[in-house]
């Protein structure tokens, strides 16, 4: 099945037109000829014209300006804070909804994925503690409850869906941070460590697992799952050596049977997770150099693959995780308004649900980001994952592997109305033309006030040769969220 939903794609591309900065064709004054303004300047030398322009200073205060004050509420210490100065509470509350508009009516016995698929209230809170000697600590947690299941009838959802999508309560970041020596920092506890320069495609960024339960919909701040680790950073000159020991294993949060993002044909087998043991620790080492006009990093890691594979064991089929080794590098180069990116990672020890032995893979990424348009950032990244000693059996279900897997991401972000409105467009394709599937996401975030923002958007998936996208090709949805931040 190869279904491409061109209608959704055209909507996305049409909306993209609003994201692009105004061009000369639009005939906006001063844009077609950048020196048109200079002509006006010369004309403005006329004394009377200048006087008229200079009278622009004599301005009544804007409505509300007369009420501006400099109360202590804006001095970094909220008036309402009843807690001690060494404690700072922050967080957000949100209400989000998703509407699936492309699903077909379900087959008998299948869950109905149409209409509203989310009506979620969420809360996340961070408590930051300021400790002596510039040490600090954070305790963070989040919770959500999705009422859509109760509203639509819990009976029509699988137990797995209710377990994973109806409610959640967990610690997020939980760490202690400070300097042991003037050039040596320690951060210990649950945390997120991001490796690499890429913003859209992961190559060397592998220390934290991901929340993949709703690809493209998960809030960016919740995408990486914190894990308990000890991180030591030593600084000398322009260099930083970072040593990491990961103590806690957390797997990716993946879609489960009954959810429309689940790509399997039957419920996932039982899972065997690595326990908390000395032999199960992960190790990482990063050497980062930051220089004028460019950065470079080198990485090495011995880590658990956060994505499971299936193994046929004496007890039956089980989902298991295996150790991988990675050597990688990343680089940034700045040239004017251009930021050029490069990343490479060689991963050894990959295992798949089809027993073909351990494999090696080389991931390469190149990318560029352009900041030359007014209030607009355009970035493009292209990555290829090459599997060495490719076994044709890997093309079969459930792996659906390829010798080379090409992915591209184009992202355009544009700020409007003095950063009140932020528009974002993301186009991602597998294979350059999207032959193996693609998705597009367009969203707008409006700052209603300093503490309340509203987000709305559309995400569309196009199925292709890739089996995963064939299963989620009709998961197109509208999404919205209102969030209060404190």
């Amino acid at each position, binding site marked *: 099945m190869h279904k491409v939903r061109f209608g959704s794609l055209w909507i996305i591309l049409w909306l993209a037109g609003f994201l692009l900065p105004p061009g000369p064709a639009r005939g*906006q*004054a*001063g*844009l077609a000829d*950048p*020196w048109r*303004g*200079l002509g*006006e*300047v010369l004309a*403005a030398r006329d004394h009377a014209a*200048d006087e008229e*322009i*200079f009278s*622009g*200073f004599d*301005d009544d205060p*804007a*409505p*509300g*300006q007369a009420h*501006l004050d*400099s109360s202590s509420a*804006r*001095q*970094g210490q909220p008036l309402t804070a009843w807690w001690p100065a060494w404690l700072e509470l922050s967080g*957000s509350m949100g209400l989000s909804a998703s509407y699936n508009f492309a699903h077909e009516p379900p087959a008998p016995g299948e869950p109905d994925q149409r209409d509203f698929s989310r009506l979620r209230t969420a809360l996340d809170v961070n408590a930051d503690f300021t400790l002596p000697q510039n040490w600090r600590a954070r305790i963070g947690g989040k919770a959500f409850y999705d009422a859509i299941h109760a509203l639509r009838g819990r009976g029509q959802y699988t137990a797995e869906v209710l377990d994973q999508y109806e409610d959640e309560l967990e610690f997020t970041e939980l760490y202690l*941070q400070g300097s042991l020596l003037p050039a040596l*920092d320690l951060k210990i506890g649950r*945390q997120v460590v*991001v490796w690499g*320069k890429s*913003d859209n495609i992961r190559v060397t960024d592998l220390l934290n697992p991901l929340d993949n339960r709703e690809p493209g919909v998960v809030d*960016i*701040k919740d995408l990486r799952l914190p894990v308990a680790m000890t991180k030591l950073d030593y*600084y000398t000159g322009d260099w930083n050596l970072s040593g990491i020991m990961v103590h806690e294993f957390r797997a990716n949060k993946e879609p489960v049977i009954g959810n429309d993002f689940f790509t399997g044909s039957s419920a996932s087998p039982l899972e065997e997770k690595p326990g908390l043991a000395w032999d199960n620790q992960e190790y990482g080492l990063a050497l980062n150099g*930051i220089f*004028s*006009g460019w*950065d470079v990093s080198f990485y090495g890691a011995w880590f658990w693959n956060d994505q499971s594979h299936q193994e046929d064991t004496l007890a039956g089929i089980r989902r298991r995780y295996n150790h991988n080794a990675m050597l990688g590098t990343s680089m940034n180069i*700045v040239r*004017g*308004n251009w*930021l050029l990116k490069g990343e490479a990672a060689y991963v050894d020890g990959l295992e798949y649900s089809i027993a073909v032995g351990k494999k090696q893979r080389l991931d390469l990424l190149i990318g560029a*980001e352009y*900041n*030359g348009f007014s*209030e607009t950032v355009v970035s493009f990244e292209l990555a290829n994952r090459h599997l060495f000693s490719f076994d044709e059996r890997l093309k079969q279900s459930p792996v659906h592997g390829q010798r080379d897997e090409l992915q591209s991401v184009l992202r355009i972000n544009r*700020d409007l*109305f*003095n*950063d*009140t409105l932020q528009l974002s467009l993301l186009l991602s394709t597998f294979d350059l033309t999207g032959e193996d599937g693609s998705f597009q996401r367009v969203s707008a975030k409006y700052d209603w*006030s*300093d*503490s309340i*923002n509203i987000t709305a958007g559309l995400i569309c998936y196009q199925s292709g040769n890739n089996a995963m996208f064939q299963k989620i090709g009709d998961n197109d949805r509208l999404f919205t969220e209102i*969030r209060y*931040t*404190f």
Partner: protein
Amino acid sequence: MKRQPTILFTAHAHHAAPARHLPRLFFLWLVLAAVALAQPALALTAREIMEKVDARDDGDNSTQTTEMILIDKNGHQRKRLIKAFMKDQGEDTWRIQFFIEPADVKDTGFLTYDYYHGDRDDDQWLYLPELHKTKRIASSDKSSAFMGSDFSYADMNRRVLDEWKFALMKESTVDNQKVWLIEAVPANKVVAERYGYTKSVIFVRQDIFFPVRAVHWVKEGGKIKYMEVKALELIDQIWVATETQMKTTQNQKTLHKTILKFKQIKFNQDIEQEIFTVRRLEKGL
């Protein structure tokens, strides 16, 4: 540290004269001296005035808390609170800024190595706490809005004098203080592109060489921006605009305005180099 000249307008040296001409010469000297003191503008070119503006002491380093108030045409306000550290490195300036408010951008940090000469791109890094990541920012274009305000990045930094052509327009008064009106036009297209202005007129207070007002003709959109110093204070013997407003207009209608209030200003503190690093950017305040 940039030194402000202690004597801005000196009396010219006079040579010995025959005794019989002394009374007349003395009278003439008095008249000339009075004229010179009363009309110092006549002694300076626009470029020289701007050199003195540029040479005015602004401290080797400073710390401050900035309250940024964004006001749209309907009077709706948004506020940002930023803690900033600055340090001169020769002609260059290092800055690090941490957002304190609003809550959704709290702990966002911005580190800049601002190189005075325009042929070298600034080094900029942005720490985004939601992404747990420091992003390098490439932007030789200084015309973009600074944090969504009416100030551009160029407005927040010193201008390179050699990149502008200055002309003395006239004298006037602002708040009963005499000012020069200096016209500044970009020297070439590249400069105009980088700053985003086709012309500026700068109102420089004559007694302290401080720009108290400016009008900027924006290259795009037919907009005109008005900068106005609303409060000026002498702190540690350094003149500081403690409140500045920038207003963006189009067809004489206000589109948006920004008020910057600088508080808790401290100059010439013993600020360590370590502050201006990505390490500190990620650790926060």
